[in-house]
């Protein structure tokens, strides 16, 4: 088990390195010089050079550069943009935003709780809606509740998140002139109830798609388990139907559900980008989106790394949880 975790952590690290190099390179193709954005109009060449110098944009991109035209193909650069960036990441210095001129790491720490709360609430909604409805749908197969769940799930997977979010804002406003308390974000620790009123609608909207997916998967997974031989054995032992379903059926059918919950995290992080924009939540999604629009290199770089790291860690947790759910699974 320990070797397994270690190996996964190593491969996760490799993935993050490749990811950061790819994003780093991609950002350098972006047309438009961030220096021009900083000193805006009437920018003289010397001023631009000074800003380049200050931001380190005059250094070579990578520690190793390949030039097919020069006699020695590969040159090693002691001081490169990627090198100093990587050095910074290790020491929690993620650079400085070109937009508000504040260091990235403190901003990230300040904004992380918002997105974290959004994610946790969304997962809670997904689980408390997806799993019970999926179970009911499987147990009472081809009944009216089953059809209801299936139709809801089909729609849940087809509606665009941004449309539902827009309607959630527009319809109450049109019909009852009600507007959710948005605009000024209230922290959970300051006023939990007001915070919940702010966070519940965006999380519920974001959870719509993932809950629909979980409902369908829970249903099919449980149906698959229900026809296994050990279910008949459990019933033959004289267990009550409820404990047959819960301890034999549910536990065994949860494995694919947890895998998919883990896979959904990546999608939810993307969805948070849109949802935070629409509901004006000052989280990391909003930060990322504004940084993208302003070609704020350091911020985009850090945010992609954060997103990638989240996905890698969640996948590891998912793999470890298999062993707990199904003792037959062993890692070596």
């Amino acid at each position, binding site marked *: 088990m320990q070797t397994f975790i270690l190996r996964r952590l190593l491969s996760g690290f490799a*993935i993050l390195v490749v990811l950061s190099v790819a994003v780093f390179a991609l950002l350098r*193709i972006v047309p438009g010089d961030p220096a021009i954005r900083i000193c805006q109009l009437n920018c003289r060449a010397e001023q631009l050079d000074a800003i380049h110098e200050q931001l380190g944009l005059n250094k070579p991109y990578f520690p190793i550069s390949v030039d097919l035209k020069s006699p020695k193909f590969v040159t090693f650069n002691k001081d490169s943009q990627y090198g100093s960036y990587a050095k910074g990441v290790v020491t929690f210095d993620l650079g400085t935003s070109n937009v508000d001129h504040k260091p990235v790491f403190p901003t990230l720490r300040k904004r992380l709780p918002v997105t974290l709360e959004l994610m946790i609430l969304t997962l809670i909604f997904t689980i408390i809606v997806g799993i019970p409805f999926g179970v009911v749908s499987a147990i009472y*197969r081809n009944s009216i509740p089953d059809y209801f769940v*299936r139709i809801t799930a089909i729609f849940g997977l087809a509606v*665009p998140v941004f449309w539902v979010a827009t309607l959630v*804002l*527009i319809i109450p406003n049109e019909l009852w002139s009600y507007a959710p308390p948005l605009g000024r974000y209230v922290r959970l620790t300051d006023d939990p109830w007001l915070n919940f009123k702010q966070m519940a609608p965006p999380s519920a909207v974001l959870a719509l798609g993932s809950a629909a997916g979980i409902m369908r998967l829970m249903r099919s997974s449980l149906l698959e388990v229900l026809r296994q031989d050990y279910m008949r054995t459990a019933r033959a032992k004289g267990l009550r139907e409820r404990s047959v379903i819960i301890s034999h059926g549910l536990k065994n059918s949860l494995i694919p559900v947890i895998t998919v919950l883990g896979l959904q995290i990546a999608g939810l992080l993307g969805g948070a980008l849109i949802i935070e924009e629409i509901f004006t939540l000052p989280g990391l999604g909003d930060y990322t989106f504004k940084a993208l629009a302003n070609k704020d290199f350091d911020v985009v770089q850090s945010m992609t790394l954060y*997103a990638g790291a989240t*996905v890698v860690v969640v996948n590891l947790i998912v793999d470890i949880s298999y062993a707990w759910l199904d003792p037959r699974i062993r890692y070596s």
Partner: protein
Amino acid sequence: MSGEIAVGPPLIVGDDALSLQAPTMRQRLGKLGTLARQNPLGVLGLLIIILFTLAAIFAPWIAPFTPNHLSRETDASISSAHLFGTERVGRDIFSRVVYGSRISLSVALISVVGGASIGTLLGILSGYAGGAFDSLIQRAVDTAIAFPPLLLLLIITLALGPSFRTIVFALMLAVIPGVTRIVRGAVLSEKNNQYVEAARAGGAWMPRILLRHILPNVVALAIIVMTTLLGGIILAEAALSFLGLGIPNAASWGRDVSDARNNFPYHLESAIFPGAAITLTVLGFNLLGDSIRDIADPRLRGSR
């Protein structure tokens, strides 16, 4: 259906399977009819897709106005002149919905077919070659999967500037990793079959083995994956347009929803109809995709 185990009717009706002659046109149509009756939801999905495809092709004849025609009535409700009303600057919402299907369908179709073809090719090469090439491709796929797709789309469209070509390119990149992985899995189980070994023993050239023996067996799988991906890609394109990174100056559903959100006081019709069009199209592709998957792999039946 009765009982716990879903036994679907056999796909090949007994007599046909035994007869040595190729099925006649009428028998084929009969089989299609049976399939259709067994999958009413798939038929519904197909009908929705046909409806929107027709709307896209014949947009100029169906829509009463051009998408950017300004009417004097602004924020109008549903009426006979404006079927879905008009939006803030007086453009006809029905016409915009009809024209919007062109962007949605063409972008999704081109990027999914292109991405799935590249993914299939990579998957076949990766699965068949194995070794260093395989690990290289698989690590690239790992990296691409460890990345929120929307973030990838946003970075690419921002880096290259929003245009039809960029968006199709970005969506293709989003399709490739998943298809590559699925096809590779299929190839791994396919390449140890005896007919492949026989071909290899017979000294067949590698491209010949890939094209004649492997490809036909994974193409069906690739097509199934493609249909299930189409809905998601339409949603992704709409989300990009919603965030202002769609194709510039094109009538697009995502952008119209975004306009409806940004124009205060709100106008219900402007928000509802373009979004409903997205939902309906995605619904159509999802229903069809599910049905095709169920037909092709009866073990998955009932997983809906």
